[in-house]
């Protein structure tokens, strides 16, 4: 798993040819590596957008309007959960709890935590992306 995480940290995703390389290096079958790769929500088999927004969908954020916030965001960007905008600019993914439940609703934008989100704040953040 650390090998796959390192690959993703370097390349942003794990291409099919890397699965074979990891399997050979660790003396595993391709099926075993594929199994690990597809089990974990974090690991990608395709590149993500230049920016990644992970919106929290868990209960604490729901209690503060996360569902409406998600609808607003997905609608504005024009993608479904897990989708990337046509130009490859932004990927929007669901996440289940960031541990920022006391400042709900929250999200991670390119790895940085943002909280007490409102549709206006999301708009400002997305406008700020190049």
């Amino acid at each position, binding site marked *: 798993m650390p090998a796959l995480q390192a690959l993703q940290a370097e390349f942003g995703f794990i291409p099919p040819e890397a699965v074979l390389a990891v399997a050979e290096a660790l003396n595993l079958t391709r099926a075993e590596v594929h199994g690990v790769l597809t*089990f974990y*929500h974090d690991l990608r088999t395709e590149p993500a957008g230049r920016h990644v927004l992970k919106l929290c969908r868990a*209960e604490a*954020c729901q*209690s*503060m309007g996360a569902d409406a916030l998600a609808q607003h965001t997905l609608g504005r960007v024009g993608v479904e959960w897990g989708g990337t905008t046509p130009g490859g600019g932004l990927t929007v993914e669901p996440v289940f709890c*960031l541990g920022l439940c*006391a400042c709900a609703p929250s999200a991670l934008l390119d790895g940085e935590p943002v*909280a007490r989100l409102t549709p206006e704040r999301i708009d400002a953040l997305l406008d700020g992306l190049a």
Partner: protein
Amino acid sequence: MTTRLFVPRDAGALAVGAEDVAGALAAGLRERGQEAEIVRTGSRGLYWLEPMVEVEAPGGRVAYGPVAAADVPGLLDAGLLAGGAHPLRLGRPEALPFLARQTRLTFARCGIIDPRSLAEYRAHGGYRGLERALSLGPVAIVDEVSRSGLRGRGGAGFPTGIKWQTVLRAEGTPKYIVCNADEGDSGTFADRMIMEGDPFLLIEGMTIAALATGASEGFVYIRSEYPHAIETMNAAINTARAAGLLGAHIQGSAFSFDMSVRGGAGSYVCGEETALLDSLEGKRGMVRARPPLPAHRGLFGKPTVMNNLLSFAAVPTILADGAEAYAAIGMGRSRGTMPIQLAGNIRHAGLFEAGFGMTLGELVYDIGGGTASGRPVRAVQAGGPLGAYFPPSLFDTPFDYEALAARDGLLGHGGLVVFDDTVDMAKQARFAMEFCAFESCGKCTPCRIGSVRGMEVIDRIVAGERTSENLVLLRDLCDTMRLGSLCALGGLTPLPVMSALTHFPEDFSTARRVAA
């Protein structure tokens, strides 16, 4: 002496602008030619006041909050460095009712010290526990932990002393210490706060566990959603190693122990102890059937102490101040303190450490101040996504392992998520099933298939399709999941579903939904 300013670097504070505040303070001080040291701390856990800035004024610390970067010039002009008057001035932090009413043992230092400074950790009582443990030896340490009454803070509430005893007696080398810091429950953030605010506490707790059981290596399994915690933990481990507090011959003794961080990859079920072990071994995070217990055959088939972060973090205090002092707090069979996390739609959201026994009502209204939205409280989910929803009519329930279980709930990892009267409980019940389906490891049928069927049945009930028959089916399905699942994910998903159905049946009837 240079005045010290304290600005949190806790992820919760960063998420609401603490970095900008620190930057504005540095710039403002430069412009004014004033000198002060900006110390980055963890969070005190008063999240509705974050970013909360503190200054070491002549008469003690003074807090200000919530501070925005734009407030900084005004604060400096008002004499922030001397604790001057300002509308955001909160006064002495310890005097704030939210802090004054707590019993802070595990969180004694969090938000006060620089988490990366070993010297500050020691100056605030750190490593007294390990010192005493080194003089006691394994059997006496285990006995001390047993007498403290400490129970697993991850949710199951298993006595920690018995677990350690089992590993101490187990045959096999090496033995491992594994910390479960895969804090996936919505409404919980105590583990994160400790890792970001007082990481040496966890290192000390795990070192004591190793000393008590004869283990030589430890792992902290941290979820990938906590990048700041991973960074701070790694930094603290390196510092401890450089200071001879990890590695060979700790503090010149015959005892050697080292530890490292492993990052998760976005799987909730890996917070289940056996799935976590599989994940640590580099595999899919699949739940294992028990027995064998991890204490006998855990990581790589070797005897393993697997505890929640908060369990390890309670140990240094127990060793330093003695089991009796810890056991004197609490109620019934729940001894000591619990870091309770108030989250969701609540005015005073944050971390509240207190002895067991306060009622849900006291926590939600007296401490939490009711909802953030100002609307009436309709439900509280206690214990994370697998915990039950409680209506206000049951708010006399004490926060205690047995009392919550007696009302078909659970204490879990100590999270309370508050909902106001706009909540749709049928939707929450459906979400519990959806979450289970999304996160199921897939090994056992009741969880893998039952959760998907559960969503479908709830959809049919809500649509008014043969409601009474489908309600019987839903109860039956919940029984099957509860009794037939391998682990808590499938086994406890019925709790939020059934509690929503039992306490809020009106939300499941078509008539109400049409009217709404």
